[in-house]
């Protein structure tokens, strides 16, 4: 029983990091109709920036390193939107999709060239410490991951409903033409959304790199498991993305915890492909996901 609880909490924590990535996917998709397949690699870049500002190069304290990584990644995303995405979006959303896939590969290569392929720690303060809640030992990093994600998602929800920029993005996601006729600067809002997705990716990177995991240039591929989470949630719903991503995290962790006896049948790392099996199942059974809008194509 303790096992189940521990695995579930770890799963929720992993799912929370997936949720941050998934919300990044969904934000950009909702606001602009674009798919950013570099989201995972941007996350890796963010984690490496934390390492670089922290133990890797400058030795800054963890919080400062994270803040600088946030700023750096937001600026990077604004640059990507301005220099690449905007110019590809003129042609088609597919051009953006392929462009961001290419960008992801570039980021991975650049990180490998700069930092090598060793597994590195980012100097997070939690290490392998655990906190005992109701007699169950839970990794401290898991508690932080869940709490921080909860605060971020909650703030985002309030922001979308009440701030000028949030209302603008919400309006733009439903009808960009009407939004611009009402004074919404859609170009600036697009940049803002890309920056926001970058910031979410950095936070996800910090938690995905925490003990017992570490950073390496390919960690972005692991984070792509957030994509099935977003699809499960419905892809055009922020809250759906959170529910979907957490579900994926829990399922994946439970499978990882109990797959050993079946290793002869399904292999040793079956949990790695579980999110993608869920993706296929969702697309077959309920393509609009749990909370998504069912698309009606007007003839």
């Amino acid at each position, binding site marked *: 029983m303790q096992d189940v609880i521990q695995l579930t909490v770890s799963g929720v924590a992993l799912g929370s990091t997936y949720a941050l990535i998934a919300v990044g996917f969904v934000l950009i998709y909702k606001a602009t109709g674009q798919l950013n397949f570099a989201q995972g690699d941007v996350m890796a870049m963010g984690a490496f920036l934390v390492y670089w500002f922290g133990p890797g190069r400058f030795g800054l304290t963890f919080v400062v390193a994270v803040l600088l990584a946030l700023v750096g990644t937001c600026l990077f995303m604004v640059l990507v939107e301005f220099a690449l995405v905007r110019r590809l979006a003129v042609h088609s959303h597919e051009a953006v999709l392929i462009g961001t896939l290419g960008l992801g590969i570039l980021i991975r290569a650049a990180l490998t060239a700069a930092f090598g392929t060793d597994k590195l720690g980012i100097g997070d303060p939690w290490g392998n410490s655990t906190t005992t809640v109701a007699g169950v030992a839970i990794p401290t990093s898991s508690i932080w991951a869940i709490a921080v994600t909860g605060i971020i998602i909650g703030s985002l929800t*309030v922001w979308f409903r009440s701030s000028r920029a949030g*209302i603008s993005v*919400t309006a733009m996601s439903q009808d960009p*033409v*009407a*939004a*611009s*006729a009402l004074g*919404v*600067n859609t170009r600036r809002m697009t940049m803002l959304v890309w920056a926001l997705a970058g910031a979410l990716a950095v936070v996800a990177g910090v938690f995905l790199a925490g003990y017992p995991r570490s950073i390496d240039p390919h960690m972005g591929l692991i984070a792509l498991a957030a994509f099935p989470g977003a699809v499960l949630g419905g892809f055009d719903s922020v809250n759906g993305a959170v529910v979907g991503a957490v579900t994926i995290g829990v399922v994946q962790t439970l499978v990882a915890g109990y797959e050993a006896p079946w290793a002869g049948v399904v292999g040793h790392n079956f949990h790695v492909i579980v999110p993608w099996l869920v993706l296929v199942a969702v697309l077959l059974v309920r393509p609009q996901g749990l909370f998504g809008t069912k698309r009606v194509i007007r003839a």
Partner: protein
Amino acid sequence: MPTSTVAAPSTGAPADGRPAEIVLAAVGVTLRYGSVTALDDVSFTVRAGEVVALVGPNGAGKTSLFNCVSAFSRPGAGTLTFGDLDLTRATKHAVARAGIGRTFQNLSLFPGSTVMENVLVGRHSRMRASLPANLGLWRRSRREDVAHREAVAEVLDLLGLLDLRDTEVGGLPYGTRKRVELARALALEPTLLLLDEPVAGMNPSETAELTEIIRTVRDQRDLAVLVVEHDMAMVMEVADQITVLDFGQVIAQGTPSVIRNDERVREAYLGNSLARDETDTPPDTGPAPTADAAARRTEEA
């Protein structure tokens, strides 16, 4: 050339001689799509407190002109100015922020949001842009938020939408959604309001109601209104000035009584379009009978 005579701004002067300020001035606006000339040397003005109607058969260029005014299209020649703003160069959001509100021919609402939220977007350009205000952290921005909500409530009250403020727009009936769209445009506190077929698809009582609302806001806010509408009875009732377009050219300009008696309009638009329009519009909104009805009504008055 017919356009040289109708371009004279004197036709746009108010009947009572009051020198109202010119809000929108179009001079020689020309727009081409490839070899098709959508607008050919179109000139007209809209003054504060004045409702100007653009009429003409389908494809006459009314919507093209609208799109030029709201900076969705760039005319190839001519000038189009809103106060000091050059509308041929301005960005779409700048046009809205300068005070041009518009509604769309095919409703363009945010269906997943409530009536209140929809109309709040219209307040967008009146909101402060500072970061703390954006984050909703600043106390002052909270007070501002309350002020915006009060302004929105006022508009909703005017349009009879106050009870529906927390209802999602997607499920509302068509006529109501049209009113929400108008409320959203009014929340912008525009000095010029562009209405693209505001009563299309409405029943007669809804049409009368909306006509009254347009009059009310024009008088209350000294608003300039540019309206495209096929319902000639409504146009005759609400418009101070009418500009008639055909094949992208202005064929007549003047007050409703001038337009009603204009031979060229009768022949080129009302006459010819009788056969043309009856095939693609419901008979009860066909232009010829309703125009006659409007003529009778004003004669009785």
